[in-house]
């Protein structure tokens, strides 16, 4: 379970929404020897089934999305500069001055700005919308750029995984940590039969989870996800949502979902009983695949177990390794509990 090399591999792999082939390949290689059956659906979701010691009373699906946020090349200027748009919710300010890699061949590029020397005082602080930014691959012309890039190529924040002082700092922690937790669970002997979904296109509107939930048709679902920790200097306590180092995050509701109250209570009880650190989300904010899953067919009882992560949807997030193990333990306990209930 403590195999952080796998987590690094998952985080360093490039795969934005609609472009999950590479990350899917890695996950498939990891899980295939350990599952009873595995399927790739029409949208690219991985749907795996693993037999446990027995069939549970409740048919459970565990889900984690495998896509990350990034950008897509929309147009190439005559001077060889690439225009782009965001895939998923990215504030333009975190795109400024960043290194990116583009397309299948991972061509390096930079998102540069007008030199600060040539700006007036107002411009120096003024927001720059993504439509005014461009990516420079140092092509001398449009023709040269076209040798390396095509419109529609995906753009990724550059891989930057680091593990220092109990903290992991990387792009794509959202949601490769969820994938990591599910892979670890699959590699163990399970007490009950369970379904596992590695979903696509979460960042553009929970699209993969919606069809996967329909296909699996479970009674219950657990979503494993990274969630916003805003516990930074200058943010008041009640607005911090959750804290890194504070343990697994459980919410009673977010912007899309009112979670099943029984499962919510199970999670808190199990955490207490097994000495797993948990915290309750202190702000109704954000959302995850639960939003699509709990409304599938005639409704699916759903709960999310989340990992607090600072700087979500930027070039570098930060999580505490202790929280990761807390999430892993809680998901393990909660999945058995739900199956047997």
């Amino acid at each position, binding site marked *: 379970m403590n195999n952080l090399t796998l987590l690094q591999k998952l985080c360093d792999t490039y795969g934005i929404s609609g472009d999950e082939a590479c990350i899917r390949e890695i996950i498939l290689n990891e899980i295939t020897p350990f599952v009873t059956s595995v399927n790739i659906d029409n949208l690219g979701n991985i749907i795996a089934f693993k037999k446990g010691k027995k069939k549970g009373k409740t048919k459970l699906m565990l889900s984690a999305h495998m896509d990350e946020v990034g950008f897509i090349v929309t147009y190439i*200027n005559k*001077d060889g*500069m690439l225009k782009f748009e965001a895939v998923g*919710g*990215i*504030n*333009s*300010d*975190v795109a*400024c*001055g*960043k*290194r990116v890699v583009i397309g299948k061949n991972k061509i*390096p590029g*930079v*998102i*540069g*700005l*007008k*030199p*600060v*020397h*040539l700006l007036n005082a107002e411009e*120096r*602080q*003024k*927001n*720059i919308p993504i439509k*005014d930014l*461009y990516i*420079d*691959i*140092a*092509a*001398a012309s449009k023709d*040269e750029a076209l040798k*390396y890039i095509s419109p529609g190529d995906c753009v990724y924040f550059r891989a*930057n995984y*680091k593990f*220092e*002082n109990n*903290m992991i*700092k990387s792009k794509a922690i959202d949601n490769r940590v969820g994938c990591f937790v599910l892979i670890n669970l699959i590699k163990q002997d399970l007490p009950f039969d369970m379904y596992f979904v590695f979903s696509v296109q979460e960042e553009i509107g929970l699209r993969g989870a919606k069809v996967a939930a329909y296909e699996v048709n479970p009674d219950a679902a657990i979503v494993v996800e990274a969630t*916003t920790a*805003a516990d*930074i*200097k*200058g943010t008041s306590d009640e*607005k911090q949502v959750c804290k*890194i180092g504070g343990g697994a995050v459980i919410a009673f509701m977010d912007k899309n979902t009112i979670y099943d109250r029984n499962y919510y209570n199970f999670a808190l009880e199990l955490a207490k009983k097994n000495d797993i650190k948990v915290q309750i989300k202190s702000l109704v904010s*954000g959302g995850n695949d639960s939003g699509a899953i709990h409304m599938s067919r005639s409704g699916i009882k759903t709960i999310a177990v989340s990992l607090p992560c*600072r*700087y*979500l*949807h*930027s*070039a*570098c997030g*930060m999580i*505490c390794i202790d929280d990761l193990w807390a999430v892993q333990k809680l998901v393990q306990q909660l999945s058995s509990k739900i199956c047997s209930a």
Partner: protein
Amino acid sequence: MMVSDLLFRLCDTLSGAGNEEKIANLIKKEIQNFSKEIIIDKNKNVICHLNNTNAKKHILIEAHIDQISMVITAVDDNGFLNISSCGGVDCRVLPGSTVLICGKKIITGIVCTTPPHLIEKKDKDFEKTENLIIDTGISGEKLKNIVSVGDYVYFDAKPEKLLDNKITAPGLDNRAGVAVLIRCAQMLKAEKIDCSVTLLFSAQEEINSLGAKTAIFDLDPTEAIAVDVSFAKQPNNLEERCSDLSHGPMIGIAPSLSRSISNKITKLAEQNNIPYQLEIMSSLTGTTADSLTVSKGGIPCGLLSVPLRYMHSPVEVIDCNDIEFTAKLLCMYILTGGIDYE
């Protein structure tokens, strides 16, 4: 010597203004094969004599060695740091960036940013550098044992090759200029030089050009050329203020510069088919040349600049060919004896 390899070594060495020890030592090492007389002075200037004759003419070639950086101004109990800029850092590139914090050891920090999920106003403006916060993820005493106020902070980005011979790295301002001088020294090694030539790698340009001002006072050359970087064209930039990347060195023309020097350099470029561009400025140049010119009783001074995109950001871009051409042009200027006094 491959210019790109040299640049990678130079850009991998972090040295902000007032903290030039590492880069000064590296430059000394890089240039030791081309000169017998190299000293690092009390201000961390590297001074290198190529041909210390008693010739009347003494040409000084200068490039600053410091880079844009930040300094820590406060360390709190929860792992957060406040910073101030040391040189004109472009604060717009900082949110969500990683930075290297050079305390007792080097640790990675992330510049705090609020994710879109929690922001009501989407198009929020940038904070000033002084209002930004760096998250180290290390708390309490443990952090205070590593980091102190006054420690330097740098953009976290390794040099990387782009297409052709182009490179992106932080600190290309002015490691590009440093590379020009080192290449020039290498080219001159086998040549016979009639005048006295000194290479000055100067400290603290990004603050107040302390290094250039003090060193030229002692060196007392008869003429000087500063080598720096300047604006290359990019979308949305003022076309008339910029040159083209990959189109050769920019020869400075300004009321504050010596027209004899710029004319001579232009002539040499024409005669030797070296691509060049003119950079016309209406008063001062914003480089060390402004200080060199008014040293002592006045020193005629020229300016050569390597075109660079996205100045003072972590993703500065240059073309190595421009560096090579700049070095060649300087080399010819020296071999033809500097200013032509007609």
